[in-house]
């Protein structure tokens, strides 16, 4: 049925071409992980001793698997990147799609990135931004990094007074603050504040969980 196959391929190609632009490295990473996963699955499957109906089925044309994989990736990319790109501006520090996050080390999460893109409890890349004219150093501290100024230093955007860094955070509510020049406690001017009955020093508040 080559004609119907071509029609389907054309339909899929049209749908894929209509998707919003994605980051090439994110797509590449997903494809590499899928290839690893498929290789692992192939390795775990023992070939039948003699040709069977199932074997003949497996040996036959499997063009539709490619279509399904492509469509699945396209849907994942659309959910993880496209929707994140169209999300309204976040009043706190910007939360990015997981696909935009730094590539995880292979030994940390070898096979689950595609799943994490759409999982509700998947870590999100959160960008912290502070305009700090005259600052020599800026760090973000909070419950997510042990309140350690060395854990998440911000980098100054060249040619500006704006400092930024991106941190992977699991969904939840976090309190945080900026430390300027290793000594000054600065709240995020774009984030709500949390009272602190324990220590009497306010923090900024961040809710993580957007796609």
């Amino acid at each position, binding site marked *: 049925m080559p004609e119907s196959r071509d029609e389907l391929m054309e339909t899929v190609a049209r749908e894929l071409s209509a998707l919003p632009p994605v980051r090439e490295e994110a797509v590449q990473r997903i494809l590499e992980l899928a290839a690893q996963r498929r290789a692992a699955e192939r390795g775990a499957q023992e070939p039948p001793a003699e040709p069977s109906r199932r074997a003949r089925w497996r040996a036959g044309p499997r063009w539709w698997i490619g279509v399904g994989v492509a469509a699945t990736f396209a849907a994942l990319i659309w959910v993880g990147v496209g929707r994140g790109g169209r999300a309204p501006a976040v*009043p706190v520090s910007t939360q990015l799609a997981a696909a935009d996050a730094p590539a995880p080390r292979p030994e940390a999460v070898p096979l689950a990135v595609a799943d994490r893109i759409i999982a*509700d409890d998947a870590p999100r890349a959160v960008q912290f931004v502070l305009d700090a004219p005259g600052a020599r150093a800026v760090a973000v501290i909070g419950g997510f990094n*042990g309140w350690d100024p060395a854990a998440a230093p911000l980098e100054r955007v060249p040619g500006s007074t704006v400092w930024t860094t991106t941190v992977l955070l699991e969904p939840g509510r976090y*309190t945080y603050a900026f430390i300027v020049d290793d000594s000054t406690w600065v709240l995020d001017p774009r984030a709500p504040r949390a009272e602190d*009955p324990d*220590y009497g020093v306010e923090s900024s*508040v961040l809710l993580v*969980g957007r796609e």
Partner: protein
Amino acid sequence: MKTSPIILAGAAVAVLASTAAAQDPRLDAKLDPVTRREVAAVIEQARDRGLPVEPLVDKALEGVAKRAPGPRIIGAVARLSERLDAAREALGPNATPAEVQAGAEALAAGVPDSALRELRAAAPGVSLAVPLGVLTQLVSRGVSVDRAAATVLDLLRRGARPPQLIALGEAVQEDIAQGMAPATALDVRLRGILGALPQPAITTTAEKPPL
């Protein structure tokens, strides 16, 4: 009765191992000896009760970052331990550390443990970390506890997902920052999300038909 030296040595090793387990190298470097010992004792007791201890370490480190005196840090860690215990009790033994921590923060904001129990009953297989975070945020921004808890409970029963809950919390927060009354802001923004959700699927005990 003579006690075997081997038993004594084993007991000593067990005590030392227990003490070492309760200590955290991050605390060793930042707390004075007295504070470190008291905080370690609270952490050890919490670990014995099966509570997540990372929030306790974070609370102590937050105190260091905020330059709180030792006794204040000890008190804050002890109170958090009590709230973690109460939250785990309300959310059930299978609650994740993130849920227990979020529950403890909700309790600190004035949310009653009965609300935590209702949320768990409404969504037994769903992580409550984000819903509890949004609930805490709504209450801290001035929405009444009863109203905020009822709203989050209703949204969970309708199948609202974390991104929708966070979007609601952020929108309410922005409206309040613009001068709108908290209750009005919640009413307005709730209309925007309810239209996209189905009616609650779970009936209460009183609504169940007789067997």
